[in-house]
């Protein structure tokens, strides 16, 4: 089986006035296609840092990151943008929809930056909206939706470009438990249909829903299940 992402001995350091913060200290990880990984660990252990590296929002200080068969370790800023546009779907804790756009327009944004827009893209976005149960809210603005609904839009958006994997940083952190359960159900369903998901979470209950858990501590992986 090919792997969706492969991280080899990656470190990440932040240099600041007060010294160097070593957010990641040699992390190796392989995520096969179709996997559902939960990254867990205490605050400050480097979960978000790892997710940002996987999401091509940043470059590692050392080590190597492969997405599919593509080495992204030394990619330029524009190349990273291209990879994000075509291969990665983000779901954030605070939804991060663009307020002046409608639901449908929000879902379409990643396609827009891929530099393509065909009529079947529009159809695909409509299907995604239907899948997350919002086909009757297409013309609404994010502020007119509940938190759970906004997160559904964000999930639909993350799938618009048919990404290698979905990265979710505490996707249920801002939601009540019932809504959170619904969102997690959606993720499980997506994974069932073949989507690779990498999720960061604090809560063990949520982590258990994934296929496996990776524990981070002080920038290193503790154990694998």
């Amino acid at each position, binding site marked *: 089986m090919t792997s969706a992402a492969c991280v080899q001995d990656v470190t990440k350091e932040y240099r600041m006035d007060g010294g160097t913060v070593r957010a990641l200290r040699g992390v190796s990880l392989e995520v096969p296609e179709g996997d559902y990984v939960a990254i867990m660990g205490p605050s400050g252990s480097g979960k978000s840092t790892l997710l940002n590296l996987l*999401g091509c929002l940043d470059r590692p200080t050392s080590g190597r990151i492969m997405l599919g068969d593509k080495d992204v370790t030394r990619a330029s*800023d524009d190349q990273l*943008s291209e990879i*994000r546009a075509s291969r990665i779907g*983000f779901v954030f804790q605070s939804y991060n929809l663009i307020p002046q756009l409608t639901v449908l327009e929000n879902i379409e944004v*990643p396609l827009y930056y891929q530099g393509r827009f065909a009529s079947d893209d529009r159809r695909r976005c409509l299907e995604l909206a239907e899948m997350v149960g919002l086909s009757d809210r297409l013309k609404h603005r994010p502020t007119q939706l509940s938190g759970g609904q906004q997160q559904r839009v964000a999930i639909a958006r993350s799938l618009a470009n048919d990404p290698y994997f979905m990265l979710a940083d505490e996707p249920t952190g801002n939601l009540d438990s019932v809504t959170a359960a619904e969102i997690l159900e959606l993720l499980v369903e997506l994974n069932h249909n073949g989507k690779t998901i990498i999720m960061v979470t604090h809560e063990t209950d949520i982590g258990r829903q994934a296929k496996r858990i990776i524990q981070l501590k002080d920038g290193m992986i503790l154990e694998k299940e």
Partner: protein
Amino acid sequence: MTFLWFRTWQLGVKSLLLHPLRSLLTVLGIFIGTASVIWLLAIGEGISRKAQEQIESLGANNIIVRSIKPPSEVTEGMGRLLSYGILRNDYERLHETIPTVERILPIREMRRRFGFSSRMVDGRLVGCTPQYAEVTRLEVDRGRFISDGDLRDRHNYCVLAADLATRLFPFEDPIGRSVRVERDYYVVLGVMKPRAPSAGIGGSLAAQEFDNDVYIPITTLWNRIGDTVFTARSGSFEAEQIELSQITLRVDEVKNVLETADLVKETLERYHRIKDYGVTVPLELLEQARTTRLMFIIFMGLIAAISLLVGGIGIMNIMLATVTERTREIGIRRALGAKRGDIIRQFLVETIVLSTVGGITGVLGGLTVGPVLRLILAALEKTTPQVMAQLPEIIRTATPVIVPWSIPLAFGISVTIGIIFGLYPARRAAAMDPIEALRHE
């Protein structure tokens, strides 16, 4: 590709409409800048054209020599009879010695009161030669002008200016009738067409009106009235002896005018101890007016440039605020695959929309300069007539002339300003670290 651009524009307009008042105020800055470029240039052009026209009405080929009363400290102790000004001998000398002079007119003029039956009208008695009409661009309406024969025979003939003719002869046909000037009578030969007054351009040449003139042969004037004029002043009589009020010379070709003028000045200087005359060269004034016009345009342009600059700073200010405000949106877009160039384009499009709208409305606003200025002047006339009265006449009466090239210039500058001042905020937006931008509250 075109679709993407279309989306970018659509998005830009959408984002701007999110804050309609803010966008409107920013547009207003550019609107004022653009309109003021067109306005100021149009007003400047109007004023300078008027000045140029006035100077040209004096004739670019002409040189005008006029008698000037010397200041009283110079004339102190000259006795009761004050004798000054250009002399018949000056006329002869200029006439004979300067070959480039094509026409030379001696003129003697004085204020007089003209009578017909019981009517009396104040006006200017002008002793002149037959060429006077041609050189001063006066046209005969009815009858005829003074002839060489009239001049030779010193006839008591006169020709009336249009306005004076209608006032002195409201009912009768003036031709053939006799106009009384003091004890003498002059038979009316003709009536002239009305003519706009010539410019007052300072120096020796005050504005001249031709409305109240009565023209007679200069020889007749010398014969009947002579050189001495008595004026009653605060109880005592004052007498002035002036041979000629003015000599107008017409030079054969424009290129000889300045040289001829120097020659005229030299000739006069040699025979006049005191400066009791002045030489006016309309061509010189014309050239001065051209440089003045250039200065004026530069000055006006500077003012307009400053207002555009202020408009540009307004754009920059708003865009910087917008970028800060939308930091999170920038982070989201970057995470979803926007390149730095995409972000730059997005914000640049917004400033271009702002400045283009400002530019287009500014051009439209600029084109209204004529009617709007008329309204403003009329309103000023009504509310503060004393202020208006103090304005130079040329400013009160000049009509703005829209300079064609000022329209693309103003529009081009406003769009350029938008791009220049929008570039910095846009680049700043693009330079943001996406992770930090996403964290921004």
